[in-house]
């Protein structure tokens, strides 16, 4: 959906659009751009403290400060170690240490990669290092790297409702929720709308694979007064194209129409939004 929105935004609006793949655990957007050139790759690291045993007085103040139980200090046997996989790199232990015994070393957590689609680094992707649990930090670093000279930025968010999702949407002006008309789709959508209310974000819904499943989701949207931006019908043929990593080859006319309608709706909102910044989406 994000890749398609990027494609149609670009094709139909005269604006610099960027796509940022924030699903850093499983980034897939680049798969669909066969001619994209990798232009830049930045390694992202977290800072892991290291305890210098010659300076350490085994006072255990760092242990007390660490809320993540990442430091183990056993004074009688002069043991002082940091468990990197639990560390959140908050810096509290550095503040705690009175003996100047802690310094930090970078530990790679993933990469941020830029791709040229039309020569302007339009696609950025975060890719978590396998085994790292620091996906939220990587998303934060990825977003910092995105140029301010963008007119529209599309963040492709990870699944779920927890911290990586919040990190992705927290500075967005508008959120598009993608669901499908099945009991699982509806239930997860309800969780997402709860989250949107909690973080006070305006949002709309796109229903994917319309025609599959049942109509409960439509009743829910109507009952709650939630805006339906559009529907993408389920098509086995189109799904097969997607499976091959081919989204733009031959887009069925019917599906293209659906996207154009969605783009038109969003465009009207963008114009209102840009016309007067006091106006909310």
């Amino acid at each position: 959906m994000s890749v398609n929105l990027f494609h149609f935004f670009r094709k139909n609006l005269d604006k610099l659009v960027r796509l940022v793949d924030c699903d850093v655990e499983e980034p897939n957007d680049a798969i669909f751009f066969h001619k994209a050139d990798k232009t830049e790759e930045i390694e992202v690291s977290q800072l892991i403290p290291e305890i210098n045993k010659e300076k350490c007085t085994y006072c255990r103040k760092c242990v007390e400060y660490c809320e993540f139980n990442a430091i183990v200090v056993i004074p009688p046997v002069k043991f002082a170690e940091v468990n990197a996989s639990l560390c959140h790199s908050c810096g509290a232990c550095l503040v705690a240490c009175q003996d100047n015994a802690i310094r930090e070393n970078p530990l790679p957590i993933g990469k941020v990669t830029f791709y040229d689609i039309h020569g302007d680094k339009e696609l950025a992707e975060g890719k978590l290092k396998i085994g790292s649990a620091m996906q939220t930090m990587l998303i934060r670093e990825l977003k910092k790297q995105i140029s301010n000279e963008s007119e529209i930025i599309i963040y492709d968010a990870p699944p779920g409702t927890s911290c990586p999702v919040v990190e992705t949407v927290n500075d967005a002006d508008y959120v598009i929720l993608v669901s499908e008309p099945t009991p699982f789709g509806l239930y997860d959508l309800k969780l997402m709308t709860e989250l949107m209310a909690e973080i006070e974000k305006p949002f709309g819904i796109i229903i994917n694979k319309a025609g599959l499943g049942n109509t409960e989701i439509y009743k829910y949207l109507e009952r709650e007064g939630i805006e339906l931006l559009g529907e993408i019908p389920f098509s086995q043929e189109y799904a097969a194209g997607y499976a091959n990593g081919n989204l733009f080859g031959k887009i069925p006319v019917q599906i293209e129409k659906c996207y154009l309608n969605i783009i038109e709706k969003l465009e009207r909102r963008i114009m209102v939004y840009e016309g007067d910044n006091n106006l909310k989406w």
Partner: protein
Amino acid sequence: MKEITILSGKGGTGKTTITAALASVAEKCVFCDSDVDAADLHLILQPEIREENIFYSAWLPKIDHDKCTNCGTCVDYCRFDAIHSNENGDLIINPFQCEGCRLCERLCPSDAICSERSSNNRWFVSETRFGTLVHAKMGPGEENSGKLVTQVRKRAKEIAQENKLDYIISDGPPGIGCATISSLSGANLVLIVMEPTKSGLHDAERLIELIQSFNISAFAIINKYDMNTDVSDKIQKYLKTKHIRLLTKIPFDKEMVEAMIEGKTIVEYNPDSIISEKVNEVWQTMKE
């Protein structure tokens, strides 16, 4: 006792549908929904809650504006950019950006910051028609889903031991990050549910690398394999190179969605279908 975790890397490949189907055919099992972020297994298993627990997650600091002098120490030290000025110029903490390290609380020269533990998460022990289910509901935007996964799995293990059950079947989260790592460490076997798409394969490759780094053995199945047989063939070849046994290939069938709508597993909905037969075979193999 053997703990079997169902994972996929990519979301939406059919983990939960397959887990529910396995629940229909498995015996002497306790079930566990480790996808605490967007738990769906209960929609099919329809649990009756027997035990409800609060899961206290990360610390959440608050600034007392009567005490705060706006000195900015907390802002300088916060590595998560979680402290901002509001319209009135008061410093406030964005609970969704805060990681709960409490450094601001410790450093504040005016003692203006105080933390409480968030109690937005719940976890449950429930009875279902297939056996006991341990599951959770996370508050929106909560952190620490990894720790909640650990909690849910721990309880499932206790229940299995108390009742002398042979298996724990655990429906895992998508991705390969903190929640997946928590659902994986210490498991005995992983069942990877793949879909024949390029992105599905790419995601499974990353997942398999993670699983193998934990030295856990894995089986795979391809769900909706006929959606794209070329990619299915590629997956099959790939699995061979990784020495992962492909247990079965499940065709796309709208009955899967129809069963879900009725709150049934595919095995209940149509016990004579090819898919039900295949699910049974998968269970027989995994059991051994």
